[in-house]
Each structure stands twice: as structure tokens, then as C-alpha cells.
């Protein structure tokens, strides 16, 4: 843990003099606190002055809003704003406890994750890849048929690779968790596969945040994938 350099003017009542009592996480202690103290020393917001022990008059709601606005305005990276506000919440809460006063706290910062745009990569290249994979799948299926007739050795066509590729290309299994669930289902495929009213479907068991079997998703494959599934050794039953 690095030692925090405090402003020269800070008195003994500086809240940040003993960061240990603020219940900061190791990251907040090592990464966030230092730049935050520099920020407070540079911009002199009233809340910062009180926390640093430079001013006595407790802050009000407007001072808190001013501090929030200052952080948003001066710091471009929202993650740093969020981290700084979290530390400030802890510091102001501690100040309230110590001084036995009821004062407004900074609001809770939330940084919603920015969704990933599926068109991040050039779509033309992705469509080319799609065409190549379709051609590859076609080739594997033909090869598989030929190998089945001539009973040659193992080829990709003889493995579950065509099934996985078909499931992704045509069956709509486009996230990794679902594909992995399909693969995991193979050792005991009969337990997962069912045929209802002429329609094949698979019960895929998905994990959630590392905990297995938290969700069961019923997947109905397309015709080609269903045929490939039935042709795999486990699927024939």
C-alpha cells in the first residue's frame, strides 16, 4: 500500500489522514485516493476543504451538487468519476459519524455498462467469413457422406464439428454459453434430446456467473442441424 501524501495545510482533523478507518477497498486505497486528493487540492470544493480539515463550516446540498458537477465536468473518464464519488461517499459518511451530524452525502454513482455494438467489425468481412463457413460446412457434409460410404478414417466431417458449426450458422446458437452447453450435452445426449410432435428440441443447461445448471433453455434446432444431430452417435437413440 502506497503512503498517501497529504496537502501541507491539512490539519489533524483531516479525514484522509487515516484511510484505514474509511473502509476503503485496496484498489480505492492505492489507485483512487491519491488522484482524488490531488483533485480536491487543485479545485478547492467546499466539501473537500471540510474533509481535509481546512474549513469548518459543514457542507450543504448545494455544495455536494457542486462537487458532483465539478467531478463530471473536469474528469472525462466516467469510471474515475464513479470511483472518486464512491470514496467521497465513504469519507463523508465517516465525517458524519465522527461529527455526529446529519449531512447530505454524494449520490450513488452508477456506470451502466455500454452495450457492445455487433457491427464493431466491418460487416463486409464478417459476411465473407459467414460465406466461407457455409462453404466449409457444405464440404464437410459431402466429405462425411463420402467417408461413410468408403469407411475411411476420421475426418472433421466425422466429428461433431459440422454440428457445432451448423448450430451457430443456422440454429441461432450465437452465444458462447449456449454452444458450450450443447457440447456438454453430448456425453448424455439422450437425456437432453426430445422429439415432440415431429419437432426435435434440446434442453440446454446453462450456468450463471460460474454456477452450473442455473438455467435450462429449450432450443429447437433448424432442419439441417437437427439432421446432423440425429447422425451423431449419441443422437441416434
Amino acid at each position, binding site marked *: 500500500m502506497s503512503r498517501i501524501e497529504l496537502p501541507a495545510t491539512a490539519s489533524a482533523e483531516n479525514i484522509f489522514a487515516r484511510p484505514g478507518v474509511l473502509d476503503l477497498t485496496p484498489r480505492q486505497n492505492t489507485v483512487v485516493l491519491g488522484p482524488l486528493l490531488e483533485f480536491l487540492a487543485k479545485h478547492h470544493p467546499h466539501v473537500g476543504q471540510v474533509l481535509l480539515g481546512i474549513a469548518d463550516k459543514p457542507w450543504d*446540498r*448545494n455544495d455536494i*451538487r*457542486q462537487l*458532483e*458537477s*465539478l467531478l*463530471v*465536468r473536469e*474528469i*472525462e473518464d*466516467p469510471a474515475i*468519476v*464513479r470511483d472518486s*464519488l464512491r470514496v467521497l461517499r465513504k469519507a463523508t459518511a465517516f465525517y458524519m459519524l465522527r461529527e455526529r451530524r446529519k449531512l447530505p452525502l*454524494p*449520490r*450513488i*454513482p*452508477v*456506470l*451502466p455498462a*455500454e*452495450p*457492445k*455494438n*455487433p*457491427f*464493431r*467489425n*466491418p*460487416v*463486409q468481412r464478417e*459476411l*465473407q467469413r459467414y460465406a466461407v463457413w457455409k462453404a466449409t460446412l457444405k464440404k464437410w457434409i459431402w466429405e462425411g457422406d463420402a467417408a461413410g460410404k468408403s469407411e475411411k478414417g476420421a475426418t472433421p466431417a466425422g466429428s461433431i464439428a459440422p454440428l457445432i458449426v451448423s448450430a451457430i450458422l443456422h440454429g441461432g446458437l450465437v452465444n458462447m454459453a449456449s454452444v458450450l452447453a450443447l457440447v456438454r450435452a453430448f456425453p448424455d445426449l439422450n437425456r437432453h434430446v426430445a422429439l415432440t410432435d415431429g419437432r426435435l428440441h434440446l434442453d440446454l443447461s446453462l450456468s450463471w456467473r460460474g454456477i452450473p445448471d442455473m438455467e435450462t433453455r429449450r432450443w429447437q434446432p433448424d432442419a439441417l442441424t437437427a439432421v446432423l444431430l440425429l447422425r451423431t452417435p449419441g443422437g441416434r437413440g
Partner: protein
Amino acid sequence: MAASRQSRNRNTKSAAGNQPFIAQLLAMAKAAGQDDSLLREILWRIQAHPELAGLIYICRHLREILALAPEIPGFSLAALEMDDWDPVLSWILTKKTSLAEGLFPKGRDSRLKDNFLQSAKNPILGIGAKRHGLCCLLWASHPRLSDAGLQRNSCLLQAHILRAHVAILRHLGPHEIWDLEQEPYPGFRDSLYLPTLAARRFLRRSSVWSYALLGLPVHSGVDELPNELRRKETESATVAAAPQAETLENLDHPVSTRNVSRARTSIAGFLEWGCAPESHSKRTHDGHGLGGGGEWIRGEGDKEDCKTGTTTYFGDADGVHRHAGNLQHTFHRRFDPGTSRQLLASDMDPNEYLLTPSVSLADDAAAAAFANAGWAEKTNQMLPWSYSLLSTFELAHILREIADRRQRPEDMELHAMVQTMLWTGSSVEQAMALLVCVKGTPAPDCDLSFSIQAATNANSTASGAWRVRALALPYRTLQQPVTGKDRERTDYFVLPDLTAVSDSIQLWLRYLREVVKAPAAQTAAMRRQPFRIFGNDDYETRLPAFLRAIDSSGRITVSKIQRTLFQQIVERTGGDLASAALLTRTDHYLASVRRFYATPGVIHLQNIYRDAVGNLAAKLAQGGYPATQACPVSREKNAGCSGAVGSRLCPTRHAVQSALAWLRSKIRKKPAPGTDEGFLTEFVRRHNKYTLYCVWSFGLAVGVRGIRTPYLHSPAIDPDSGFATISDKDSGSGYHLRLIWVPPKVRQQMQLYEAYLSSLKNRGLPPARRKQPCYFLDDEGNPVPVQPATILPMTRQFFPFPTNFARRFIRTELLELGVAPEIMDAWMGHWWRGEEPWGRYSTFSYAKYREVLQDTLVPFLDELGLQPIALETWP
């Protein structure tokens, strides 16, 4: 003093670059032997309007103020270098007629000349009051001309504000003010504007404000006045007791003593700033009050500028949960004057590019949890089953209850008020400002008015029409309309009264006429002047109490009633937020950027309104409230139907067709044999025009923004589907990348262009490459990039529109042709969090998108005359 004069001269060189009227006035001053640098200094210190609106009256009042100023202890004109202003002001006043004729000769927009000489109504209001707050204040004198005390006090108040203003600007030093988009720090202009707004309130005719003005200690010294004003604030009870004798005159100008108190505080803060500008600390406010200071973080209730922050409320801003569970979304604004200037030159909103979402701030843990669960995203989707909306049955129940109670006068008034809010989507404030006109009343200059057909006849069929002022966009540059080539815009539009709001308004009007005997409500008086029908100032408290009496659960709030029409329009149009904002005069944050690209025709808006209101009325009828009383459209049936509203510089279809035809003819024109020099000129001319044609074809098809190289290399487009990805706004995260579909004819044009560029290899010019798929040639025949700075000089003569004209033009045209707004949003690349067409919960289909564009955009491009043309390769 000599040093400061030098400073003035230095400013002279840099200022007024893009302010033609100011530059012309300075030139006229110089020609007349006046000190033009001093004049420039004056215009800067008062932040004059670039069109010189109201300058004559401002100069007249400035002279009066400067004459009175020495009476104020501590006000030294010499210290502020204002002691030598009088000769220049006097020159302007004596030469006003010749100046007006010289600045605004015949043939120019007569409005500019009228504004310059304007004496009847404040010309700066509506065209820049926020940016030129001091001018707006200086133009005004107290309306009670006969009252010398009021005149004197108002003049002294203006003197104090002027002194502080000049001191602050002097402290900030020389500044390139003429580039109006600049400000020393975000929020600076608000800090100047709000105190001037507060001071203008004291110049109202209302007895409350007049009384307050008389009580202002404006004779106090410069240093004492702020404290005196603050001290006065504590004595507000005195003011509150004064205007007990309410008259109908007061009803026209509802004010509250709380507003007086706020205004005093605001002025006091500003004067303190002016006394010691060096020790001023920028303060931030939460969106309430008028306190002088810096940047605001605003909430949903603020109409000024929703872009600096928006709030998502758990329920309503005025609901039972208003103090908890709110989530404020903040934005970081990059201070980048260069980019800002470039964007403004292209007539784009800089906030679209310079604002980036920062953290959201939750009031409590519940709001934080909701935010993490995607609450804000869901709010942005404007789903019809939101908690903050009223169901049809709830709404029908309220309206039935209100209608049943309207025998009592106070309920009669509230019934008319609620009807107005519901069917116009107005807030309480907007509804309170409603002016009612009868036949013969001059058209009022207000946001919302209502014309009734037969106000005097109790048995007549109720009918009428709303007259709505189009919601203005916060433009920060001056752009003259391209007469004859752009969609003609109108300031007002008329909406029919489809649900017989006339009934309730006439009922209340009749009561005011016959029982209250209000003079201003009589027909003869109303013929001369429109009548403000909702004259009380306590609706903000009375209306919620009235609604609580109907439904004690707290579900029914004023905000929900106000929001109903906006939501209805959004639902009926499939998400046309810009039209909903224009029709209801709601500056909704989701519509803020979209409005910069929407210039819908008035007829189109009227059709949307008819559909939305008709549908809502039908649903209410099912819920037990028969609202539908299809009234004949009033005498103004045809009035206000022409023109368009919204963003400016949207070309007409004919203008685009003509420009494309002209361009084609120039490209096809065979070069005449001549010298080598002539050959090069001809070659460059044809190459540039051909390149421009290709760039326009691409821009019209995909709506690319006005960026450097607004074009794609054709191998980047999937040959089978025509899909490609472009990044014309993205900051690096990929969030704003968008999928585009390039129509076959445009792809063909691109291939022809690339073949042409390949043929230029023999002339030492590069072929099309991914990094440089197109280029112009300079006079020497060297490649230069295609960008707004190189496109604009080329198009200025025959098509004087910004480079991104296609976005505004195609969006407006296709929406009027019936294309769904969500398709156009995907085409434009407009989405906020939760609205992404590729988002997790989105049901948007790109296959359908292509299908719709194939059916609408392709025929439209054909109609424009966009055909692939080849340019023969030269030897």
C-alpha cells in the same frame, strides 16, 4: 488609459470576423469619423446581438443610464472606461435612419431593419435573449411611463447590472466574442443571462413587481447593494402583504412573492460577482432558483437545456415518490472550441459530438439497483406500459369526475385548465400563459393561444383552433434562409380543436364576463387584445390538490396528464419524438438531437395531431368519457397550413433535383479544345464535379455525416446484400458505428467512379484506395481530401447548404412519405442508451430495414434524378 486603448486596437483586428452587420456598422462609424474601436468595445461590453437588434433603444437607454450612474456611490465611469461612450452613442441615435438604411437596404429582410429600430416590443426576445441577456434588459424601460419613480429605479437597477457586467467582462480580458459559440467556461452565459432575466422581471407592469421595484435599494452604493438586497429578502412578508387588492390586471401577470425573493437573490449574487470578479468562485446549482453562478446540472423540469443532465424519475417529478428513487444522468462536455466552430459552420449541434455520457447519480440504493438493471434504458424506449403514464381508464375517470364538478366556478376554471393541458400536452406554466382570442383579435406573440369562433353566443357550437409557436432550436450561429431553395419555415402553426375544448374555455370565459365582469374578458376588449384566461398564480398548488381530491392514491399527477399527448403521439407514429416535441412544445431530451434534423411540414404535423387526438378520444370514449366531438375546423382552416417548422436549411425536393441536374449537365458537357492550361482547368473542374456527384449520391443514400471523406471504398460494401459499416461519429468504442445499406444504383455509381480514378493512373493520380476512396483536385491538379472545407466553396454558388444537408432532407422527406421513425433513426444513427437498433432488447430487423429502404428510398432517389453516370477517361 493608453494601454487600454492599445488593447482595444488589438481586439479590432480579430473581432467581427463573421458578423457582417457589426462589421458594416464599424465601417460606417469609421467613415463618419467616429472611433470605431470604441464602438467595437461598447458592442462587446454589452454583448450586442449580431443582427444589432434593438440597438437604437439600447443606445438611448444607455445614455440615460450613464447620465444617472454618477449618482450611485462607488460607480466610477472612468474606472470602467465608460466615460467616453456618450459621443458614439449620440452619433448612433442621431444617424439612426441613415444607419438603418445603410445596414439593411431594400431587398434585404425587412425584419432586420424593424428589429434594429424596434420600439414596440423587445426584439431580442426569441432571437437570442439567452445569449444577449444584458441587451435584452437594456432595451427595456418600465412600461408605466408616467411613473417617474419607477422609471428612475428601473434605470438605476439597469445601471448596477451594467456595471457588474462590464466589470466581469473586463476581468475576463479580451475575448473573441464575435464567435458566439465561445464562452470562457461552460455555464458562463447562463450566469450572465439569469440575473438579467431577474432584473427584467422588475420591469413588468404587474403591481407586485412594481411595488418590489420601488422597494429596491437601488440608490445604495455599488458595494452595499448586494447586502441590502439580501437583507430585503428577509422582509418579503412586507411585499407579500402589499398587493392584496388583486385586480384583473394582476390576473394577467401572475407572480408570486417567492419569485420576487428569488430575483433579488439572483441579482445580489451577480452584483457581488461584479464587485470582486477575481474572487468569484463558479457555483453549481441543482436546477432550482435563479441564483447567479456557474453551470447547472439540470433536471427534467428544466426547459432551458436538457443536454447537460437529465433525470429519470421513479414515478413523477411531482408524484408521491418524487423525493426518492431518482436517477440523474450526467454528461461530460469536451471544451473544444475548434471542433465546436467547425460543427456550427456545418449547422450541426456541437452537443451531439462533444457531450459524452458520464456517470448516473442515484438518490438512493433503490435507484442505483434499478439503474444497474437497465431502468434508464427501458425509460428511453418510451414503452406504453410505463408506471409514469395514466391508463385510458384512469384518464377517463379523472375527466369524468372533473366534468361532473364543473358547476362550481373554481372547478370550472380547473376543468378548462386540465383540458388545455391534456389536448395540447402543455405544462402548467404553458397552460397558464394561454391567450384566448376572438374574431378580429390581432395574432398574439405567445407560445400558445386559442381562437374561439363565437365567444358571445351561448348556444353556438363550440369550435376553435390552437395556435402554437414552433419550438425553436438553440442555434448559435446566424444563417440566412436560402430563399426559394429551402423549406419555408413558419413561426406558428394551427391545430384544430377536435375535442371541444372550446366548451370548457367558453364556459369559464362566460363566467368571467358575466359574473366577475372582468373588463379584459369582454368581447370588445378581446378584439383589441387577447385575454389571458388563467389568471391565478397558484395552479401549481391548486391543481395537485384538485387531483388528489379526485383520486387519493397519488397516482394521478399533473405531470402524467401533461405527458399523455406526447406519449400518444410517440405511440401512434411509431416513435417520432421530434414531431411529438414540436406538437406539444416539449423539449424532451430524446428529441433534442433529432429536432436538428426535422423540418416537417405543418400539414404533416396536423395529420399526426388529428390521428393522435382522434385515437386518444376514441379510447377515452371506450373508457366512459365521450371526448370526441368532431368540431368543424374554424375559420382558420387554411391558415397556418403552409410552411414547415423545425430545423432550418432543409432544401426542397425541387432544389435538390435542380442541383443534381445542373451537376450532371456540367459533368456531361464536352470540353472545348484549347491550350494546355485550359485543358487542366477543364479537367480539374470536371473531376471535382464528378467527385461531388458521387459523394452526394452516397450521402443521399446512406446519410453520412459531414466528415472528412464522407465516402466508402466499394470493396468495403458486401456485394450480395449491399450492407456496410460506417463510423462517422464514433469516439473509438464502436457504440455509434452503424450498419448502412447502399442501393444497387449507388454501388454502380461507386464502381464507375473507381474505374474512372483507375484510368487516371496515367496522369500520375492515385486510384481509389480504402483510405482515400475519393478526392478533389486543386488548381494544379493535385489531390486534396473531400471534406466540408473543400465541398462548401464548390457548392456555395449553386446549392448553398451545409455539407450534411442530405441527412435533414432525406429524413424529413421519408418521414412524410410514411417511413417508420425507427427506420429513419437507424438510417441516421440516432440512438440513446436503450434505443440501439442492435440492442439486447431490440426487435429491430435489418432485413425489414433494407426492404423498406428498397421500397421508399430507391424510388425517391430515382425521383431526384440520381442515375449512375460515367465520365469518359481522358487521353
